[in-house]
């Protein structure tokens, strides 16, 4: 708990206020965990999509069946 408070107090007040609106029922440590998970998901998502394009190695879609 002390650690959570410490993290919260280091956070910019405006940022914390905005985050509290988005996550009204979560503690600061829970908010930070959610944000960390989101960051990982976004990174994975980007890598997946660009990985798919790379896997096609320049092959263009044939939309005849689309």
């Amino acid at each position, binding site marked *: 708990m002390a650690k959570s408070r410490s993290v919260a107090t280091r956070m910019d007040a405006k940022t914390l206020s905005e985050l509290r609106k988005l996550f009204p029922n979560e503690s600061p440590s829970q908010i930070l965990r959610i944000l960390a998970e*989101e960051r990982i*998901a*976004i990174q*994975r*998502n*980007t890598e*997946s*999509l660009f*990985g*798919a*394009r790379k*896997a*096609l190695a320049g*092959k*263009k*879609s*044939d*939309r005849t*069946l*689309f």
Partner: protein
Amino acid sequence: MRIVADTSVILDFLDGSISDPFVLIRPYRLILVSPVAFHEVLRAYPEEFHSKLLHELSEELTATPKLEHWTEAARVLRKLYPARREKNIARMQNDILIALAARDLGAPVWSRDRDFKLICDHLEVGLLAQ
């Protein structure tokens, strides 16, 4: 922050005509793909690429449509396109299933296909047409 991409924008991205999708979808930051759209994507490429695409995109897929989605899709299809002979009904069915996947997630659809306007309005799903 999540958005569900329609087949056409995924194909545009994979073809390179959309260079960076994350610029276009701001403030959304995570692009999900319905298995229905993924199926349509696979149809556009030779089989030798299918396992690679599945490997890369499997974690970005939404849930597979359930019976309730198929039954609702039938209802919506009948309501929105009661006498539409010139349209590819199978494609419209897939568009509805994609929009239903977005609705389940509380996310908008990302599509440049004008048909999605009618579907998303009907289902009260957001639409990003960038």
